[in-house]
């Protein structure tokens, strides 16, 4: 490894280059390369099986890489895994807590397991509980808590020691909006404090909202990376408006709006690509003039899922909304 590259890798909180991992004959990661800097929230997006969890597992020192160079908090993995662990906070996809213990007992265990004790441990527990908003329910057994509260606890257990590197694996799966917001706030707060956060998700809204950068992963390879806006922009996709009307518009009807074009007509339903969402009022007037009575209107702005679909031809989720946006 060239010295300059080495310095760069050590300087970044997370540095992954040419990462490769195989399970038997199946290649899970193949040449994955990315970096996460201090205070940065980087989204790791990809469908199931893309290699997100494996990447996080390697970074969390759970799985050794087959090839590639991995640095976490300046420690090369897997050789200095034990040293790196003190700097890592892992928030697994599952709520990795003890269900029969109370939230406070879980926090108490994990904070002491991190090597904190006495007042520092109590302070850390109070801080983490307050950050994720556990509130009064921390004395209850985890199994009685709601899914959202468990997710919050899951996050709290991973950040007790204020790790400089935080690995979040879909931390908001199945949570209520309130808990989701609380988790977002906590993650943002941690990043603001300087934590380097790798946020694995297949929810593009989360990624777009939280992440300063996004890495799109598919079949173990990075298909794109950059800010969400850069990625969308890079694909040239435009917003799509879907209309459902009371009558079928006459053949040859054209909205006559700059940059708009009909993508699909099916009876009284119509899909149009527009250059800008600001064209909607004009479009509605045009439809009215053609005798159409708009019963329903849907506007879909291009997002990372669309980008992913555009790049891979596959949806981020099984029930994905591929094709909802118009390609360039």
């Amino acid at each position, binding site marked *: 490894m060239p010295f300059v590259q080495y310095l760069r890798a050590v300087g970044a909180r997370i540095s992954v280059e040419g990462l490769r991992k195989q399970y038997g004959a199946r290649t899970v990661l193949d040449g994955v390369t990315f970096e996460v800097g201090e205070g940065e929230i980087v989204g790791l997006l990809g469908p199931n099986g893309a290699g997100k969890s494996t990447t996080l597992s390697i970074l969390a020192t759970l799985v*050794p890489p087959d090839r590639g160079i991995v640095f976490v908090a300046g420690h090369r993995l897997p050789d200095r895994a*034990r040293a790196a*662990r003190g700097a*890592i906070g892992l928030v697994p996809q599952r709520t990795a807590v003890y269900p*029969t213990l109370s939230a406070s007992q879980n926090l108490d*265990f994990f904070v*002491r*397991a991190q*090597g904190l004790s006495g007042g520092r441990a109590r302070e850390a527990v109070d801080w983490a509980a307050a950050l994720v908003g556990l509130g009064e329910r921390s004395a209850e*057994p985890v199994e009685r808590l709601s899914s959202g509260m468990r997710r919050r606890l899951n996050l709290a257990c991973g950040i007790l020691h204020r790790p400089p590197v935080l690995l979040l694996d879909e931390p908001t799966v199945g949570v209520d909006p309130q808990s989701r917001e609380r988790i977002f706030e906590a993650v943002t707060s941690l990043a603001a404090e300087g934590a380097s956060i790798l946020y694995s998700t297949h929810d593009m809204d989360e990624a777009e909202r939280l992440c300063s950068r996004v890495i799109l992963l598919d079949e173990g390879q990075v298909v794109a990376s950059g800010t969400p806006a850069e990625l969308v922009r890079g694909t040239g996709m435009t917003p799509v408006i879907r209309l459902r009307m009371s009558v079928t518009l006459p053949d040859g009807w054209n909205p006559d709006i700059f940059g708009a074009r009909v993508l699909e007509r099916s009876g009284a339903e119509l899909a149009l690509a527009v250059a800008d969402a600001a064209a909607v009022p004009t479009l509605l007037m045009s439809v009215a003039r053609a005798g159409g009575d708009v019963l329903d209107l849907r506007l879909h702005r291009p997002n990372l899922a669309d980008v992913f679909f555009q790049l891979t031809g596959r949806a981020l989720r099984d029930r994905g909304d591929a094709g909802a946006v118009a390609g360039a």
Partner: protein
Amino acid sequence: MVQGLIAAFRKDLLLLLRDRPALIFLTIAPIVVITVAGFSLASLYGSSAQGSTPPVLLLVDEDRGRLAELARERLEKGDEVRIQIVADRGEAASRIRDDDVGAALIFPAGTTAAVAAGRPGQVLLYTDPAKYLQIANVRTLVQELRHELEVASRKKAGEHLAEARDQALAAHAGFESATREFRQKAEEFRAALAAMREEIVDRMTEARKRAADELDEDIASAATKRSTRVRERLTRELAPLKAFLADLSATKRQLEEWQRQVEERVGPVAKALPPPPRLPVLPPSIQSLAAADPEELANRVLGASIKFQTLGRLPRVAVPRVPDFPRLDLPKIPQPPEAKFPGTVEVEETSVTGAPKRLNTFDQNVPGFSVTFLLLGILLGVSLGLLDERDWGTLDRLRTLPMPFTAAIVAKLGSRFVVGMLQMALLFAVGWIAFGVSLGPQPWALALPTAGIVFAGTAFGLVVAAIARTRDSVLPVGSIVIVTMAAIGGCWWPIDLEPDWMRRVALAFPTTWAMSAYNDLMIRRQTVEAALMPTAVLFAYGALYLAVGLVLFRRHLRST
């Protein structure tokens, strides 16, 4: 790391305390199984378990004699069977056929009389061979009873014989004493007779002497009187002679005077004168007689000082000697012989190991089932606990902690170790309090094999957790192994019931060593030294399991 270890240890204890089914499985379940098994198998060891009801043994007393009475007393005194008296053997057979009881002991009429008369007495035992264990125990009991009755009869007869011998010995001694006394009295009598004879002789001698003296005195007196009379008579009768002689003497003296005067007067013519006539000369004897003292004369006549020797002349009377008594040569009466019956062959069963003659079924079941449930509890606790951690996702979280993952495993094993020790302590305490199980002379010594088996079981749980990939496979894998180890290792029945090859195989199981130590300490009442070797083996097994478990579990983690 130590702090993390303590935290993990505490966490695992908390997890267990929150797991009520597990707590029940660790405590209530073994107590229930021990209780059920203990009472169910109470008859297996011959001695009734504390609180259990011993089997019924019917007793038919057609004999109405002492023998049946003794048998009943003996059987009622023990706790091996419950005696029920039934009227006749028909009823006994009926109850056995009706599956009510397993055996009946019948004393036919005349049994006591026959035995008393020295003839064999027959006792009948009705059985239902299908009730094998019960019958086996009853058979043993009846044989013991028969032996005890025989021994008691022999003892009683011996006592009677000894009593008769004592009486004979006393009579013999009395006879000999009387004989000695008679001999002594006879001797004394003979001595008295001899003394009496001596006295007679003395008295006779004295009487003879006295008679002689008296005679001598009388004779002397008579002689004196006679002498006196003689002297007096001589004096009297010689007085004229003396007077004549005195006259004659005086006449002579006068004649001589006359002559002298004549001559003087005649002068020279005197010569020429013719001699005067001569007076006759007195014979000396007459002169002597006249001059003699009458007493002397008397003595001369009578003989002077006649010494009378009467004694020698008295007849001697010989007193016959006291005859010797005939010797009392009684025939020697031999001492009565020792009362000896032909000896019986006694089987003296001695527990050289210190174990009681009959075991309480709980002596076997408490440690056996405690070990079984301990292993099950530990196995499920460790393996399912680790699988729980995996399923909960906490295992991955533990692996990303700064403390070594081994420390987390050790903490989990350590918490289970402590729980296992407490579980065994509880079960032994229950066994001791509720079922009267002995904890041996050094109850604290039980901690050694307990620590060994808990350690081995805990480490084995890690092996199972590494082998069994899912929760569903833990129970079959673990239970097959543990049930096999428990059964072959002697947890459920005494290992001596197993064939030799199986006992050799059993040495490969930690349960065998644990039960060996428990049996030595609890049943054989041995001291801590007996548990050292098994404990060392158990720890060796534990170390082996731990090493294998850690290797397998790490491999298992890497592959997931």
